[in-house]
């Protein structure tokens, strides 16, 4: 599957990513739900991968991760690495399965959040953070996934709205076009 990134898409993506990261840092991170914060930046990366494919997803993940690490003075490269893998994984999901179900964003959002949270925790452990794998930590991760799943659908709609018109190829449009051209579902052909 060829991925072509137009200038419009790149610009919209960059602007939307910057907005989401600042909104995450300034608003979402300060509103705890069930004692945890939603992480819409990881959802953004997942949905960009799901809409634009693995290469764009990975590149977006790297850029968003770098922005987060820079803005919050966190360990540089850590969020980039995790988000790159999240974006790539979601992009591959689109390329291989091309899921069309209404609940796809929900499941992808949950999966991406789980990968991001677990991946981040594993990286922190590997880097030598002195912390026990406690029940509390697992609870935080599970709650984080639940909260991200709750905000996944609005975030999907927002991302779709922001990138609409500039997306390389809409999978739904492609499927509809395929249906018409094969003739099976065309209303113009009378039995």
């Amino acid at each position, binding site marked *: 599957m060829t991925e072509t990134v137009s200038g419009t898409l790149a610009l919209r993506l960059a602007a939307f990513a910057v907005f989401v990261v600042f909104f995450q*840092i300034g608003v979402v991170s300060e509103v*705890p739900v069930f004692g945890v914060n939603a992480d819409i930046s990881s959802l953004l990366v997942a949905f960009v991968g799901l809409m634009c494919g693995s290469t764009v997803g*990975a590149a977006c993940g790297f850029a968003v991760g770098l922005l987060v690490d820079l803005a919050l003075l966190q360990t540089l490269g850590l969020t980039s690495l995790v988000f790159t893998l999240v974006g790539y994984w979601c992009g591959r999901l689109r390329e291989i399965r091309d899921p069309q179900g209404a609940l796809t964003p929900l499941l992808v959002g949950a999966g991406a959040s789980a990968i991001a949270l677990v991946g981040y925790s594993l990286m922190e452990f590997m880097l030598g953070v002195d912390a026990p794998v406690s029940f509390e930590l697992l609870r935080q991760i599970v709650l984080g996934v639940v909260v991200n799943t709750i905000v996944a659908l609005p975030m999907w709609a927002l991302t779709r709205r922001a990138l609409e018109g500039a997306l390389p190829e809409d999978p739904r449009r492609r499927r509809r076009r395929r249906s018409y051209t094969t003739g099976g579902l065309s209303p113009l052909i009378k039995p």
Partner: protein
Amino acid sequence: MHDKTVRRRRAVLGLLVVLSLLLLTAYFGEAPNGRLHSVQRDFLAIVSPIQDGANKALKPVRDLFGWFGATLHAKSQRNELLKQVDRLRQQLVADEAEKRTSHQLLALFHLDQLGINDYHPVTATVFGKSPNIWYQTVNIDKGEADGVRVNDPVINDEGLVGRVTAVVADGAQVDLITDSSMGVSARIGSSQATGLLQPKVGDPGDLSLRYLAASAPANVGENVVTSGTVSSEESLYPPGLLIGQVTSVNEETGFKSVNVHPFANLQDLDVVQVLTAGAGTRPANLSRVAASLPSAQSSGAAGEQLASTQVGE
């Protein structure tokens, strides 16, 4: 064509992963004043005014979401607070006599003048917070230009919040007391026994005061305050700053530890104060005097009075 696409896709992924690992390795390998760290600080210097503006513009949105959360939380807090009020009322009556004596002693040592203003507080607005459970940090809109320096303690009207870890001209980063990198020398209000207060990683609402002497008295509901000293040296934190309340006591081999719930609502910080007067200044020197007081004189209500004077002002 397909092979070319696959190769390109894998090459991009490999390149980005390698780039991330290189950044990670270089960042860990360099000193805190290294190139990547200074790039981060420069970036913060550039975006902090933007973030600050965005924070002010988005405050109504945050408040709206916060209102829902606060309303749900308020009901559960109400019953707990009513019980606490009853308990504190009884405690207040018992402490009255002790307080009178303590006031006299404090006046004797000229410590009654000690207030938060002596630490040159700088009021700052929080404009950013890490969403990550591994980084309990916030960004504030005051920096070097306002006299804020690395390691300055940060408080709010409820108690100790954290300390400054990075500063740029118009902004600074604050590690909260629940960040895994933090450790505060603290004592239980009624006792002179000090311990090290550290966060319980993975549980942002809880702290743990460790390495207390096994014989040190510790009861649920007691206040925990900064001790002001670390092994007879001055601590980064002035003495008597309120931190939290003991929620449970654990007996461990050779020492005692207590779980502490912080007073400051670290999930919803809006305005904080940075105490810009560093160690060695007048208030910090006064902490030595406070530490030299006989334990019967400086403990208990006296210490707590000192704490409430400092934080409350």
